[in-house]
């Protein structure tokens, strides 16, 4: 590449060129060495940090070498070029219009055929929409129902039933309906408050047992699990968008974007003294949808 002159003047051109060449030589050599080392690292079992660094040196060496090469030894200097005009000339437009319209008229001479073609393509398009239906089931009662029924035992994640005495004051436990443990639409929070007399409407106290109240764990905003309980303030917090629900006041939202309280699950005790639901939630749990109240 020594036949191409750098932009600098004659006197300082030689030492500059020599320095530049040294940089490029070093960069390309470092790149080669790093690439070989990368192969060795890989061969010896791999190591993410080393791989990243060696890859960076290997690629960076090529990059530095090329850029310095280009800046020092490739011709620089600006060229002025005419931009020309984007739009076509009137003649060009006219000849295009003419060419297109000739064909268009020929096609339109058979108006009926053209309409039928449109109809056929349209019908095919409509028919082709139907397979979309195979992608998923009709949205049904699933959005409205969970697995809780009258007398369903409440089970923890490890499949054990819950007695009131299992829950310490200020404690929270996540439960599911028996037979549906882990099901995404029915995680429910059992919360035991220190002073049951604090329960106010819209909490339904007849649905609580010994200061224990059950609310759907799914936030009414976007359905995130409302996983944080501040026992001193008796508040449930959603970590996703900071909606905050007041446990003693029917889990009504007091902060954040949620518009509705967490639905309350009617609680009772069975003969064995285990906590059960006395029915399903009276409204859909989780995030809203247009016909939620139908």
């Amino acid at each position: 590449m020594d036949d191409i002159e750098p932009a600098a003047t004659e006197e300082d051109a030689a030492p500059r060129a020599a320095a530049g060449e040294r940089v490029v030589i070093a960069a390309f050599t470092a790149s080669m060495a790093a690439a070989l080392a990368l192969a060795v690292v890989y061969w010896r079992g791999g190591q993410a940090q080393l791989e990243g660094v060696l890859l960076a040196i290997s690629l960076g060496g090529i990059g530095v070498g090329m850029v310095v090469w280009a800046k020092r030894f490739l011709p620089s200097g600006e060229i002025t070029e005419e931009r020309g005009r984007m739009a076509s000339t009137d003649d060009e437009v006219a000849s295009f219009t003419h060419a297109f319209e000739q064909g268009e008229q020929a096609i339109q001479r058979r108006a009926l055929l053209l309409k039928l073609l449109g109809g056929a393509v349209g019908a095919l398009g409509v028919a082709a929409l139907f397979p979309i239906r195979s992608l998923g089931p009709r949205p049904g009662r699933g959005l409205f129902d969970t697995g809780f029924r009258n007398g369903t035992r409440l089970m923890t994640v490890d499949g054990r039933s819950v007695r009131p005495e299992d829950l310490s004051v200020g404690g929270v436990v996540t439960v599911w309906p028996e037979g549906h443990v882990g099901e995404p639409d029915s995680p429910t929070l059992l919360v035991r408050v220190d002073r049951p007399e604090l329960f106010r409407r819209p909490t339904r106290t007849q649905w609580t047992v010994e200061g224990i109240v059950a609310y759907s764990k799914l936030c009414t905003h976007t359905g995130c699990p409302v996983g944080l309980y501040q026992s001193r303030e008796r508040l449930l917090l959603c970590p996703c968008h900071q909606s905050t629900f007041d446990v003693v006041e029917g889990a009504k939202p007091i902060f954040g974007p949620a518009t509705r309280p967490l639905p309350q699950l009617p609680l009772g005790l069975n003969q064995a003294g285990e906590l059960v639901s006395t029915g399903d939630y009276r409204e859909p749990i989780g995030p809203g949808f247009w016909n939620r109240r139908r």
Partner: protein
Amino acid sequence: MNQPRPATRSRRLARWVDDRLGTAYLATKALRKVFPDHWSFMLGELSLYSFVILVVTGVYLTFFFDPSQAESTYRGSYEAMRGVEMTAAYRSALELSFDVRAGLVMRQIHHWAALLFVATMAVHMARVFFTGAFRRPREINWMVGVTLLILAVFNGFAGYSLLDDQLSGTGLRIGYSIALSVPLVGTWLVSLLFGGEFPGPDIIERLYVIHILLVPAVIAALIGVHMAILLRQKHTQFAGPGRAEGNVVGERVWPTYAAKGLGLFFLTTAVLAALGGLAQINPIWIYGPFDPAEVSAASQPDWYMGWLDGAMRLIPPWEVRAFGYEVPNPFFPGAVLPGVTFALLYLWPFLEARFTGDRSEHHLLDRPRDRPVRTAMGVATIAFYGVLFLAGGGDVLSTTFGVSVNAVFQAFRVLLFVLPAASAWVAYRLCRDLAQRDPAPADDGSVAMTALAGVAEDGRDQDDRAGHDGPEAQGQAVGKHH
């Protein structure tokens, strides 16, 4: 071609191709193409390079990733997860991180490249906006660019949602709730997308096809369109000596510009490789497999989703209820806000043309200070989405600084309107002062003005006039001046 040199093998090959395709003319044009040089013109190039790196690393990942929600048990080398029940998707993501050689570094480069892809696009778009490069005749390419931005953001979200870890599952759940909130069709929409109620049996398989095939194919095609239009229209340039509306002043592609560009590609890849090796990103083994009944505190999405997440948090508890139906709250920040945002972006070139009445062609770029209103609006827009972005981390800010969550979000709600207004005012004043101190293109004003007039009157004479008035004759190399 003066004297034919002795035919080498490559020359014979080139001749063979040319005999069949007649490529010499176009290839010559490509080599001699002139590109104006400015550091800010490299931003789009960086996006392009990020995309190439995404494709290369992504293909490697597909060899090991199993996009399936089937139950399986991890038995790989990461002790803490051994024996844990999880989906095949999460298991294979763990395996390719710990048990596939170079798997982790490839995965991390892929993720970093995705962040850079969207980031460079956003900055590139800001450059195009503030310099007025979207004006006629470049409105089409602006809209192609906006489409690319939307696709990149969507595909980033789709990509990190595949791994089925606790964080990605939370993101998908919020996406589900936004889709569910759409009036009339929401319930059908989620059922068809997810294959049923959340989490649904099919979403990961489907997102996978979307993420690795459909969207990348469209992105690649649109990048082709974006660059074809760029070549056809030639690049814009800043005003300066010898630069006019009717010409383009810069370096030829071959060899210097091409070498620099290719060098920049290698440098971009090098930075991403260093990040991928040294800077941990998306450590899914810490998040654990997705459990729909759990969520970790301080769940933040990738940066380009931050503004949406922030909007989801800042919106007051409003929803619309009428005739026994409702439009749930997430619809507004989750669907209306991005809809309005991208609609305004698409329409901006036309809105500006309508307000300024300026519908003429522009190939010389504006300095932001010379367009104080546009600059102020751009700054206000950045401030608005910046506040939303910060609000996305409101819970983290609250714990970091020991301020109550309520106070943080109330402050953000005020800032969301005050900061854009204030920063727009400051930007406007700054532009005015700067422009006064340093009046618009002092250089070859004569050239630029004449050429402008040429365009306004009848675009055809512009080149001649510029040639006559300009100090440099066309086609002649002038020394670099920066």
